[in-house]
């Protein structure tokens, strides 16, 4: 979908991203925060059940994770932060209020650079604050046949971070790029799994459309229920169409919350009369404020890894292709691994491309995903050296790698056991002649200057030798033969 009148209207998008933090325990109590595989209501205590008289206590690691995120998003970390009560009556809150941060959040005034088609947009980060997640509701037909809502309190009180962007985003593509890059960053610094399918990353959007040249007003539409980046892009494209259409017909755009419906591919109004957004925030009396010392901020900053943007810039400067680097830095363990391979002597360009394509293929085929990579970076560097000096063909390098995963043997060992490459001139020569004879069309193409014909003929030789020929020797041999015959 494209915007019908992209030139006549200006699109204003801001994103609110909720992130479940990776901690052992909940935000304000000692219940286990990992509820995903737990039976409903088994990770629950008087604090997260909202019993009267209980005392919440702030989880230090959750605060640290939030500050880490703020630093990674170039935020200021104010000296003083506090928690507030956000009051609303809905059965997903046991206390009928959520502990959140209102006017003095942990992180403010940051920015995040997002790339779309080679152009960089700087998206302001208004704030990053900390709050508690809510209980999970399911809507069912109960055993007695009547409709009911069931409450599982396990998720209630899990640490939840909210990242609020400035309305600096103008297209669905930018919003998707922001989301994807933010997910990679959160994983990179280790504060969250950021898996959208588990609800560890949830993105809501505020969007409005204004005639070009006219001032931007206050009215905006909040869009929720996007469960993937694709859904985010589609929901925003739909809203741009819908709001542009209303503007063109001279109809007003109402401030409202709309839910994305994946099946119908449309947003629908979620407005309900009794659900007024009147949160009556006030300072949380049970939680003393936080004085964030500069020592604490500096220590957290010093312990952060180098940011993906910096690592990517380095790799590109060392000759790695941009597209491969962009893909690599989505994955920090694999990036760290690649850096170690390069540190062990492989060239950056070769290592990154080979790891992103060949190595990752073999790694993903391993049965126990997520386990530590069983092959040392030095071993991979030596395989890449064998490949670079022609001792191993590209095809064979892949096979050697599979064998390294399967047997734990070194690249050298495997290559030796497979026997030497066929580089004996006589044997190769007869194979090359056979191939040339059998493929007159390719020979003609080669003579017509089509470079791919040589690749094809080489491939035929490699196929017959089952990858054991030295590619350079084969290439030289075929060319010599063809050039001599012409």
């Amino acid at each position, binding site marked *: 979908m494209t915007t019908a009148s992209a030139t006549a209207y200006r699109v204003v998008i801001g994103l609110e991203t909720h992130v479940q933090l990776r901690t*052992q325990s909940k935000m304000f109590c000692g219940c286990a925060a990992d509820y995903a595989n737990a039976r409903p209501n088994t990770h629950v205590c008087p604090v997260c059940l909202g019993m009267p008289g209980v005392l919440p206590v702030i*989880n230090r690691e959750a605060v640290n994770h939030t500050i880490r995120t703020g630093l990674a998003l170039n935020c200021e970390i104010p000296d003083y932060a506090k928690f507030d009560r956000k009051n609303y009556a809905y059965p997903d809150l046991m206390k009928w209020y959520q502990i959140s941060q209102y006017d003095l959040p942990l992180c403010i005034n940051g920015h995040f650079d997002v790339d779309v088609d080679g152009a960089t947009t700087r998206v302001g980060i208004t704030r990053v604050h900390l709050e508690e997640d809510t209980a999970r509701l399911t809507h069912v037909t109960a055993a007695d046949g009547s409709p009911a809502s069931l409450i599982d309190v396990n998720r209630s009180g899990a640490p939840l971070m909210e990242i609020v962007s400035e309305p600096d985003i103008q297209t669905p593509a930018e919003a998707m790029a922001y989301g994807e890059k933010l997910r990679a960053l959160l994983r990179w610094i280790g504060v969250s799994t950021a898996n959208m399918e588990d609800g560890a990353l949830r993105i809501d959007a505020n969007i409005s459309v204004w005639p070009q040249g006219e001032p931007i007003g206050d009215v905006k539409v909040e869009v929720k229920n996007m469960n993937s980046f694709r859904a985010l892009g589609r929901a925003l494209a739909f809203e741009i169409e819908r709001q542009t259409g209303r503007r063109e017909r001279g109809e007003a755009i109402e401030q409202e919350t709309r839910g994305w419906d994946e099946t119908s591919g449309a947003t629908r109004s979620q407005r309900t009369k009794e659900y007024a957004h009147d949160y009556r925030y006030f300072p949380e009396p049970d939680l003393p404020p936080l004085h964030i010392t500069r020592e604490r901020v500096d220590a957290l900053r010093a312990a952060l890894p180098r940011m993906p943007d910096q690592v990517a810039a380095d790799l590109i400067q060392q000759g790695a292709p941009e597209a491969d680097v962009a893909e690599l830095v989505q994955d920090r363990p694999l990036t760290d691994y690649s850096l170690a391979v390069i540190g062990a002597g492989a060239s950056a360009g070769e290592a990154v491309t080979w790891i992103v394509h060949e190595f990752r293929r073999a790694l993903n085929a391993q049965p126990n995903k997520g386990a530590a990579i069983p092959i040392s970076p030095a071993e991979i560097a030596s395989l890449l050296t064998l490949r670079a000096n022609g001792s191993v063909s590209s095809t064979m390098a892949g096979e050697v790698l599979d064998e390294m995963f399967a047997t734990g043997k070194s690249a050298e060992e495997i290559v030796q056991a497979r026997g030497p490459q066929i580089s004996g001139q006589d044997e190769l020569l007869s194979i090359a002649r056979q191939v040339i004879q059998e493929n007159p069309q390719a020979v003609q193409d080669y003579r017509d200057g089509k470079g791919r014909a040589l690749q094809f003929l080489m491939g035929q030789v490699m196929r017959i030798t089952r990858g054991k020929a030295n590619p350079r020797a084969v290439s030289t041999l075929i060319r010599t033969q063809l050039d001599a015959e012409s």
Partner: protein
Amino acid sequence: MSIDRSQVDHAAELARLELSDDERERLRGELGQILQAFEALNTLDTEHIPPTAQVIPLGNVERDDVVAGSLPLDAVLDNAPRVEDGQIRVPPVLDES
């Protein structure tokens, strides 16, 4: 300071309370008195007093991220109005989250 019926109704709606006419009238009076008590604060000169969100002289009360255990399921569900399938059952609500 007094408050009117519609303010009582609004507060009741936010709190999901159903009030009888008698209750609304009684609460209108009581809430008015509470607000009146707070009005007294406005007579104080606070020009040179820094704003505070806390009356307890404490800060940075944090705990280590350690799991301390939870309640048995029976105890969790003990106060639930209705229980179904190990969960707390409530009247159906539209999921707006």
